[in-house]
């Protein structure tokens, strides 16, 4: 038998409970997706596509109505194993203000560890370590209400990092931040993945963030419609737009020019690639003349 992935969802379906006798629609409809350790995966989809519902299946906040999800081989339907699963897979939500519980930053980061019964000396060590990793150690004795949105979100991430999980799932962690906050948070998330080897699953509406990941999963109408590298996914400009999503501006420009018959690379993802491609195209023209 093939080696099992770290997180595996096998043809899962999900609908929220019915009320007033109305049968609710399927939010997830036969989704299969697997994530390996150390992967950096983006999940895209428009509002209502089912992507947040899918993310909540990765640490057993929700369990599927049909099919099954396993984390390190443990089924999320096993209630007795909930703690184990949630220590492996931590979750960060959109609104930083809803996730902070304590009045002093280091106490907030320690909250989960206290609940898990980690010995005090070790809590001290893990909290300091986590705060250093998100570059917020100097603020450890401050009150969270004086922080910017980006800083609060990094505190929320530190709270998860302190639990030493294998995986962090982030549900639109930058949606409420300004560009500076977004940059800070994305930098932190990349470090988690590249330097600490933590598996990252990020749900986002920002195409430039998705373009940074190793892999992009597109969810539409409760189904996975694409699952590939950013280059492949954003290469399908028409399909992406059809599904109410977008591609980075540089990708769109090169796609449009290619359509006009100019010689450009298959799918351009970032600024530098675009500058290089256009430089070649335009200087090439000049040389001919």
């Amino acid at each position, binding site marked *: 038998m093939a080696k099992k992935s770290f997180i595996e969802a096998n043809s899962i379906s999900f609908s929220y409970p019915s009320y007033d006798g109305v049968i609710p629609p399927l939010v997830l409809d036969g989704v299969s997706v697997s994530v390996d350790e150390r992967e950096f995966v983006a999940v895209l989809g428009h509002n209502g596509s089912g992507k947040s519902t899918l993310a909540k299946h990765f640490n057993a906040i929700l369990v599927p109505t049909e099919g099954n999800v396993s984390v390190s081989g443990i089924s999320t339907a096993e209630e007795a194993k909930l703690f184990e699963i949630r220590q492996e897979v931590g979750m960060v939500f959109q609104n930083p203000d809803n996730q902070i519980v304590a009045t002093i930053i280091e106490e907030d980061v320690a909250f989960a560890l206290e609940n898990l019964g980690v010995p005090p000396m070790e809590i001290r060590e893990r909290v300091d370590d986590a705060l250093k990793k998100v570059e917020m150690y100097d603020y450890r004795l401050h009150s969270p209400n004086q922080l910017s949105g980006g800083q609060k979100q990094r505190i929320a991430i530190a709270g998860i990092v302190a639990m030493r999980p294998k995986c962090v799932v982030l549900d639109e962690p930058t949606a409420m931040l300004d*560009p500076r906050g977004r940059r800070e948070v994305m930098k932190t998330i990349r470090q988690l993945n590249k330097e600490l080897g933590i598996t990252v699953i990020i749900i986002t509406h920002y195409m430039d963030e998705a373009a940074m990941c190793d892999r992009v999963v597109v969810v539409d109408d409760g189904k996975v419609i694409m699952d590939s590298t950013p280059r492949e996914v954003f290469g399908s400009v028409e399909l992406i737009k059809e599904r109410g999503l977008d591609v980075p501006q540089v990708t769109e420009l090169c796609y449009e020019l290619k359509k006009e018959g100019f010689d450009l690379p298959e799918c351009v993802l970032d600024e530098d690639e675009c500058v290089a491609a*256009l430089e070649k195209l335009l200087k090439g023209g000049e040389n001919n003349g």
Partner: protein
Amino acid sequence: MAESIIKTEGLSYVYSAGTPYEHRAIDDINIDIEKGSFVGLIGHTGSGKSTLIQHLNGLIKPTAGKVYVGGEDIWENPKDIRKFRFKVGLVFQYPEHQLFEETVYKDIAFGPKNMGLSENDINRRVREAAKHTGLTEEYLEKSPFELSGGEKRRVAIAGVLAMQPEVLILDEPTAGLDPKGREFILSEIKTYHERTGATIILVSHSMEDVARFASHVLIMNHSKVAMYGETREVFKRVDELCEMGLEVPQISRVFAKLREKGIDVPESVLTVAEAKEAVLKLLEKGGEANA
């Protein structure tokens, strides 16, 4: 010079004056906004944007300086301040949190009712505003709390549109929406702008959106106005904007880099469509030279 709709003179505001937390949120703001313009207001968190917009319809009384709406000093007679709140409509961030009525209809009707309009007028305005924000008839009798986040936001915006303000200020109306939802709200605002000639002030973190919709851009930095001018002129100053921690549209950055490399592309390219046109033009020239 066209008619001025909003003007400030030496406008300053200090939070918690006389305490250790004293903070000058806006400092000597002098702006003059033309009637009918579409202004993008940009600045990172803490730059003073929100404090500024709350002065423009009298929600905050300035520590120093004056605010004029349509040439009138809004604080000349503090009892008349309500008049200016109807003229200058403000849609807050995450306005869906402010819905409170039993039905969508009643929620949208709240503003017009307070203006003392007749039932007929209210009815007409509610329906118009609902139509403007893409809410069909069937929504009007629903409870706002049954709706999705995006739908709630449309109800909240409709509530301000129903007052038919001469100036419409929106504080990050697209925050947290997906690209489709963002596009919808922005195009509705644009339609409202074109149809009514109202002045729009759009607070946004998205330079791309501002580049596409705004005729003018106002940049706030450290409690002061850092730049104010036509969109194209402001976005030419790529380096300064980046220094302030702001982001110019990705495509503008690419074109700035191409210029640095000595390629003669236009100085300010704001959208993908413009970029494409610019590249095609250059290639055409090259082609002609070949011929």
